[in-house]
């Protein structure tokens, strides 16, 4: 035994254990996110269970079983549950009972005490609503276009689905009018207001002013008429969406009327086969990726967050690539290799290790308040005191991240430049090429893979960074996307949503944490995917370039 210890074998094994632990953690983490994230979209069955209370009364619980947990009796008692004297451990179940408008509670724990076996009735409906979360209950009848169809009718299910589809279509139409057309009118109105204000600021007078003012007045009258027409159209649509109602029975025996205008989807998950569920799964996954969030981000999709993240990273790449590469070329090819350059180089390398929040502070103070404030003073005076660039937004977020990732690009490009054999440079120079020609036609192309590597690393870092963005332009809910059909099409001053911040916000600032939890896992999964995808794309580009230049340099 002692010899065994002396040989050092146990230490080798302990070291091996450390690696194993690291690997288990890595794989476990990814696995945890994947399982929870993917699991969110699977339509789970709706369980019905009867609970006999201690006083003999019975109550019915209908909902999705979220998870169960076995705890010690002491913990359960601490949480205020009744536990019979002789039990040491007790299992409790977390049900998503929904019906938040009825009961005020969404998720409820029930202990196994007095619990009858679970049943999965076919007529248990899950109604996804635009407000108040899910509704769980049993259908009674549907009033559609003045006709009442009881749930027992054979036509019931089909009529319900048609009516739901109709109301969703109407809802989309309403949204299109409100968002696009009325939005456009509002933008125009705002522009007129600014025109008017800048007339005052520029102190225009005389004929020019009269002409301008008449133009503004005329245009706003036109807009007003247009708006009234749209308003009427909207009123009609609104009235029409409220045509159908569904009467449901809750688990506590109440009858509730649900207007189909408020419904996103009606399913009876217990009747679905596995294939049906898989189809439903894909539909939900697609909606998650392409729809806007609802209900304080705890429901619906995350499209604006994905879009915001990608746009921001894109704008950042445009800024960081040229500057990073030029700085690296300067440091490696043009600067005199003396002590000063060495100090600069070490400092730049070290900036890669500076906490990201420091960049956020700098971005907020210098970019937003100082630069942005000055830009507003100069170019957007008419809009003041409402700031345009003097407030956090897409451009500043991108610029801050560009600064944050600059050292990464510089370091990587410099390494690439340093690896190019000096014989190649000398060969080029010996053939009579100038330094610039050598640089741009020989050295830089050879170093392109290294530059791409730098850009990849920069993008991967930027996409996952949250702390500085909280200060310089990311918000929990942005009303508009940074890119749209209104001139100038890309709006650098707008605030954006961001996947990483979405995770933080939904997971920690949300009023309904339990409901938000699966969404956070799903968002995290998307973020991991996005980062891995960005990495893989860039890596494949890098490899292709490497191949190309390898043949070119041979």
């Amino acid at each position, binding site marked *: 035994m002692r010899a065994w210890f002396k040989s*050092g074998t146990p*230490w*080798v*094994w302990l*070291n*091996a*254990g*450390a*690696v194993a632990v*690291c*690997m*288990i953690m*890595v794989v476990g*983490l990814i696995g*945890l*996110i994947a399982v929870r994230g993917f699991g969110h979209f699977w339509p789970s069955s709706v369980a019905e269970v009867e609970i006999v209370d201690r006083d003999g009364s019975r109550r019915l619980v209908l909902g999705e079983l979220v998870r169960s*947990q076995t*705890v*010690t009796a*002491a*913990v359960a008692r601490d949480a205020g549950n009744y536990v019979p004297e002789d039990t*040491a*451990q007790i299992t409790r179940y977390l049900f998503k009972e929904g019906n938040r408008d009825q009961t005020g509670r969404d998720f409820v724990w029930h202990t196994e005490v007095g619990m009858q076996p679970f049943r999965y009735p076919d007529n248990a409906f899950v109604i996804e609503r635009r407000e108040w979360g899910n509704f769980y209950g049993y259908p009674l009848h549907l009033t559609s276009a003045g006709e009442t169809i009881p749930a027992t009718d054979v036509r019931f299910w089909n009529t319900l689905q048609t009516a739901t589809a109709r109301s969703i279509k109407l809802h989309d139409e309403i949204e299109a009018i409100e968002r696009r057309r009325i939005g456009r009118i509002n933008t125009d109105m705002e522009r007129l207001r600014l025109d008017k204000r800048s007339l005052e600021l520029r102190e225009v007078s005389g004929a020019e002013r009269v002409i301008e003012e008449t133009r503004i007045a005329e245009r706003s009258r036109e807009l007003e008429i247009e708006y009234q027409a749209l308003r009427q159209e909207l009123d009609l649509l609104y009235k029409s969406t409220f045509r159908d109602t569904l009467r449901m029975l809750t688990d506590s025996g109440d009858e509730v009327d649900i207007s189909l205008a408020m419904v996103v989807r009606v399913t009876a998950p217990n009747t679905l086969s596995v294939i049906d569920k898989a189809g439903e799964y894909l539909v939900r996954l697609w909606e998650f990726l392409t729809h806007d969030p609802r209900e304080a981000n705890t429901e619906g999709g995350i499209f604006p967050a994905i879009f915001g993240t990608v746009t921001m990273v894109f704008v950042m790449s445009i800024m960081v690539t040229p500057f990073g590469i*030029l*700085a690296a070329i*300067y440091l490696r090819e043009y600067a005199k290799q003396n002590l000063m350059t060495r100090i*600069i180089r*070490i*400092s*730049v390398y*070290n*900036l890669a*290790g*500076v906490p990201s*929040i*420091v*960049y*956020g*502070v*700098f971005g907020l*103070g210098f970019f937003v308040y100082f630069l942005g404030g000055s830009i507003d003073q100069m170019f957007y005076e008419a809009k003041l005191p409402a700031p345009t660039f003097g407030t956090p937004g897409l451009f500043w977020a991108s610029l801050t991240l560009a*600064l944050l990732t*600059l050292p990464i690009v510089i370091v990587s490009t410099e390494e690439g430049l340093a690896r190019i054999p000096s014989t190649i440079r000398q060969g080029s120079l010996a053939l009579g090429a100038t*330094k*610039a*020609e050598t*640089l741009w036609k020989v050295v830089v192309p050879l170093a392109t893979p290294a530059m791409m590597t730098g850009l990849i690393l920069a993008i991967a870092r930027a996409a*996952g*960074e*949250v*702390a500085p963005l909280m*200060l310089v332009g990311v918000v929990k809910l942005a009303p508009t996307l940074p890119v749209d059909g209104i001139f100038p099409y890309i709006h650098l001053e707008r605030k954006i949503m961001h996947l*990483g911040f979405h*995770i*933080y916000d939904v*997971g*920690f600032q949300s009023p309904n944490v339990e409901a938000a939890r699966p969404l956070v896992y799903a968002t*995290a999964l998307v*973020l991991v995917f996005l*980062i891995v995808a960005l990495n893989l794309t860039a890596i494949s580009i890098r490899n292709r370039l490497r191949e190309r230049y390898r043949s070119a340099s041979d």
Partner: protein
Amino acid sequence: MNETSSTSDQSSPRLKSLLPGVEARKKLRKRRLFKDNASRWGITVAGFGVVFALAMIFVYLFYEVAPVLRGATITPLSTYTAPVADDAANALYIERYEELGLQYGSSGMVTFFELESGALRAQIPLALPLGSRVSSYAAAGPGTHITAHGLDNGQVLIARHDYDLSFPEGSRYITPELEYPLGTDAFTLDEQGHSLELVAIASRTRGREATLLAGYTDDKRLVLASLSSRTNMMTGAVVVNTELHTLPPVPGEPVRMLLDKALRSLFVVDSAGWVHYYDVSNPDNAQLVQSVDAGEGSPITAAEFLVGTVSIIMGTQNGDLSQWFLVRDESNNYSLTRIREFNSHGAAITAIAPEYNRKGFVAGDASGQLGVHYGTSARTLYLDQFIDQPVAQVAISPLNGRLLVLGENGQLHSADIWNEHPQLSFSALWNKVWYEGRADPEYIWQSSSGSDEFESKFSLVPLSVGTLKAAFYAMLFAMPLAIMGAIYTAYFMTPKLRGIVKPSIEIMEALPTVILGFLAGLWLAPFAEDHLPAIFSIVILLPIMMLVFAFIWTRLLPASIRNSVPDGWEAALLVPVIIGFVWLSIVLSPFIEIWFFDGSMRQWFTNIGITYDQRNALVVGIAMGFAVIPTIFSIAEDAVFTVPGHLTQGSLALGATRWQSVVGVVLPTASPGIFSAVMMGFGRAVGETMIVLMATGNSPVVNFNIFEGMRTLSANIAVELPETAVGSSHFRVLFLAALVLLALTFVVNTVAEIIRQRLRTRYSSL
């Protein structure tokens, strides 16, 4: 254009030069030269620009922090004779917009005048009862505008000055007004009708409205009146209910009385420099609680409450200034305590003007000096000669921008004052500070509150301790795993496995920390709370389990099985062992709780007096350790892997075992690299924001308890910077915090980088 291709027609009799003409070549050369220069200058400019931009971060953070170090400056603006020179001033005030000045005269005349020129704006006489005369004056703390005027017939008149804003023709016009909040009638404070030599007033505005009046009569009695007012809903008339009390006699000859606005305490300053503290919270049973020698032999010439009426500033005959407030001891008794001193003026303090929304004040003395001091930070920001004769009265504007000084000769001086950041000083940021209402000096971070009277507490110590605490536990978790893992991966692992392990651990570095943070906060924290015994058993028993398995594998198993797995696959063998053991620990966890900890280990901790927060340093340590592992692992692995092979080969050839070679040769050679890896990891842990933001309770505590949370510098910035006012002291402190973080990580990384470069040169020489 200058292509010399081999396909050109060689058979042509007249060989035409393929080179362009002289002119064209000259042009081309020029263009190439221009391009070369343009490229050089373009790149140099861009390079400098980038370096400059990065240097800007330092410069800008300094620039934002710098104003904190500045003291106060006072710039005299104008001097004029007081508009009512024949009337001695009881008090001076400046109105909010710094346009008007106000003087309460001893004759009962209230005079409003323009601050710039001294031109008279309005004169309103107090509604004094017929035949009476003002004999004493008191104000109810800064910002209330309420004043009490003691009369020679034992009555008190309570008045309030106010300003009405109107905007005729778009510009502001201020109309001064005088109101009587408790009615125009004077209240009888002394039933015997003696003249009131001194008076004090305090009003409670929160909760049930009440006012307390104290007076000292010329026959040396201390009287107290509590007024409770009720406004009639229907008529709007104010009904005032008065209760009169006589207090125990005061030892000594009073010169100043102060009532706090909680209506609990009365402080009477006597001519010998003693302060007598009366508890008047129950006026029927008011008692003299304590007498202290506040002047220490020197008479007190000025005493004034700071805003909030908790602290009293005492100024003495020989120019000393000190701050006092009531401190509660263990047995719940209050005693007036000297908290701190300010720089001495060297001449008798004659006037003190407290600021309206901060714990600062301006003091004037008998030699004509003005001093600007601040309570919390104990700073004297300005102390200089202002006029050439004694200062009689001082007033500061509510926004701390303007001063009004009355000299003994009746000349009024108005001055600009710049005093933006008095709260901050080195000692306020890093030392223990005795805050108002606290029993002891403490380190506290509490930057803001709803009330104007709030004393900002800007100690960076809790945040720095929190930062170090988080980094410490993270390193405790990450260091052994990362370094040991790196040694194994670099030295023992088969290349095949290494090809998988290294990139997968390194890819973790790209994993956003927000994901780690949310998992730590939403999954790990509740999990750890529910399975505490499992966590402990894993930490303690897992290494032992590994050794047991290793022993069984290498010693007890038959060689046939052992040899079926080549060396370098130990890690893979251990994976099922670890997973199995972790699973077992989790399953057994509730039973351990039942057997040893009365069913709940968390409760057990609470019972033995250990605070347990769900989101604590343990959770942060694991999560942030996880974030740091790839950093340390990757650099340390490189350092170990690049140790020249002939060194270890030599060691092995001399008969050392593999492990002995590692300990004796590889580690000493690679140790600087490993050290620099640890430094890098530490740098990352110090600055990490999202994990600590999400996995701790963000409470700024000063301790190293693993079961409590913390607030780090970085998380604090993330939480508070979006909320704070641009340019305020709080804003600048947060910039300072960022600067501290920047400097700290920069230094740590530089050291690590230099060590690594040294190592590189050493390896190349080996």
